[in-house]
């Protein structure tokens, strides 16, 4: 028998009996970051490969969610800070060894890139604009004007600079896509590295977490695109992509556990939290069965021409994605080195 007790001094409920420093904010931030990364990745990828026309939703409409997700993610991160009045200190240095620093900078960079991306498509996203009757239209009257034409787009910018800017972004879309694809992969991997950089928490400290979170982020993004698109062909392709991503994810998760079980005592105990320990049911039911296996079956059935309401696999995938991050954040803080 071996028993460890802290008999006096540290009676801090945030630390003892188990660490509980990161609450809901971090998993929400990781989820939204991964989602945004995936959406921007697909938009950039299909632009670089010259398939914009075939994947209208992925390239044009879905990226609108990205800056919103990033914004909400940053708010969640801000809510996590205990000394938030000093948050600007994040942007006074770049610390390459600190994943938090990487995250803060990457989000700062990818935010304007994604907005510029949407701006380059704004006329295609909103071809008709009513400046008379709706509220937003009335506000926007300062910068846009309506044209009486039969053309598809019935408005234009009033300010010359905006016209030039829009033209420029449209011309440079390919270059923008290259920047975006790099940034989105960094963001997607980063959401895993944020956790895996912590040696002190054996559950997190595995290099598989980076690719695993990237895959999971791409999968949630593919699901979102499936939900948004009205084009049946595009939906089928994303359904297939998503199926592939789910298989990769299952493979990586198997690898994760194999690595743990072949590791040190601390790692074995981390794995045991999911293999009989207190997170077993939560993890296997929410992440593996509901979040991965059932949507995979549904998507496979759909490919075999069965009629499946698209909301089902999509909702399950998003649920699995968010639960995965919640469980990892929560469980990781329980694991520790024993001495």
């Amino acid at each position, binding site marked *: 028998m071996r028993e460890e007790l802290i008999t006096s001094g540290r009676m801090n409920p945030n630390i003892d009996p188990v660490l509980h420093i990161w609450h809901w904010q971090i998993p929400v931030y990781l989820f939204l970051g991964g989602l945004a990364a995936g959406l921007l990745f697909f938009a950039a990828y299909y632009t670089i490969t010259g398939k914009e026309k075939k994947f209208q939703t992925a390239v044009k409409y879905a990226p609108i969610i990205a800056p919103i997700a990033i914004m909400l993610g940053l708010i969640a*991160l801000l809510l996590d800070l205990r000394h938030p009045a000093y948050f600007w200190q*994040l942007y006074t240095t770049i610390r390459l060894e600190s994943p938090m620093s990487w995250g803060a900078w990457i989000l700062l960079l990818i935010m304007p890139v994604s907005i510029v991306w949407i701006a380059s498509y704004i006329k295609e996203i909103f071809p008709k604009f009513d400046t008379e009757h709706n509220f937003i239209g009335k506000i926007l009257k300062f910068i846009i004007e309506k044209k009486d034409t039969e053309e598809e787009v019935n408005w234009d910018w009033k300010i010359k600079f905006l016209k030039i800017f829009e033209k420029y972004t449209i011309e440079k879309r390919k270059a923008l896509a290259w920047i975006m694809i790099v940034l989105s992969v960094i963001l997607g991997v980063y959401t895993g590295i944020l956790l895996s950089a912590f040696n002190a928490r054996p559950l997190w400290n595995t290099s598989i977490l980076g690719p695993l979170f990237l895959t999971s982020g791409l999968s949630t993004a593919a699901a979102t695109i499936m939900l948004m698109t009205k084009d049946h062909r595009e939906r089928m392709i994303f359904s297939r992509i998503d199926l592939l991503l789910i298989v990769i994810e299952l493979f990586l998760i198997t690898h994760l556990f194999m690595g743990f079980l072949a590791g040190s005592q601390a790692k074995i105990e981390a794995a045991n939290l999911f293999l009989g320990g207190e997170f077993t049911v939560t993890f296997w039911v929410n992440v593996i069965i509901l979040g991965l296996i059932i949507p995979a079956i549904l998507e496979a059935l759909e490919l075999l021409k069965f009629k499946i309401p698209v909301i089902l696999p999509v909702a399950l995938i998003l649920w699995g994605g968010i639960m995965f991050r919640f469980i990892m954040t929560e469980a990781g803080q329980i694991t520790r080195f024993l001495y």
Partner: protein
Amino acid sequence: MRYAMAIDTKKCVGCSDCVVACQTENNVPIGYARDWISETVVGIYPDLDLEIRSERCNHCINAPCVRTCPTGASHITEGGIIKVTPFECIGCGACIEACPYDARFFHPKGYVEKCTFCEHRVKNGQSTACASVCPTHCIYFGNIDDPNSEIAKIIAKRKYKVLAQEAGTKPQIFYLI
């Protein structure tokens, strides 16, 4: 120069004087502590082996808390002392997650706090508060790079261990066993 501490687990009785001394000396907010006592019991009654340790930040050479800090608030100062600058700390909690010894905590004001090896005392040639008050004199503090210092001598003479060596942090609190 490198400050380090050796704690004799054979002499420590777990009286918590070091805890109280630190709280008083450093104005640690009520309910918090920068050092603490832990006991490890191994065996089955009546064959028990008891080890009592006074624990605190290990002022690691390869400090993960400094590495993961996004602003540089967590930093290494002269003599290898790990400190936090409150007005640079954003309270993200990364260093708390990074420390294998759970040596850090949020001050009620929001920034992270921890043991400073009583830098203000040490600079003036005094020892740390915990080492000064220990009634069994089981805490040795000093410059481990100086072969004539008390700590260097005791480390050379006695068998010792460090906590969670496999975490790779190169901790600088040595437990004499």
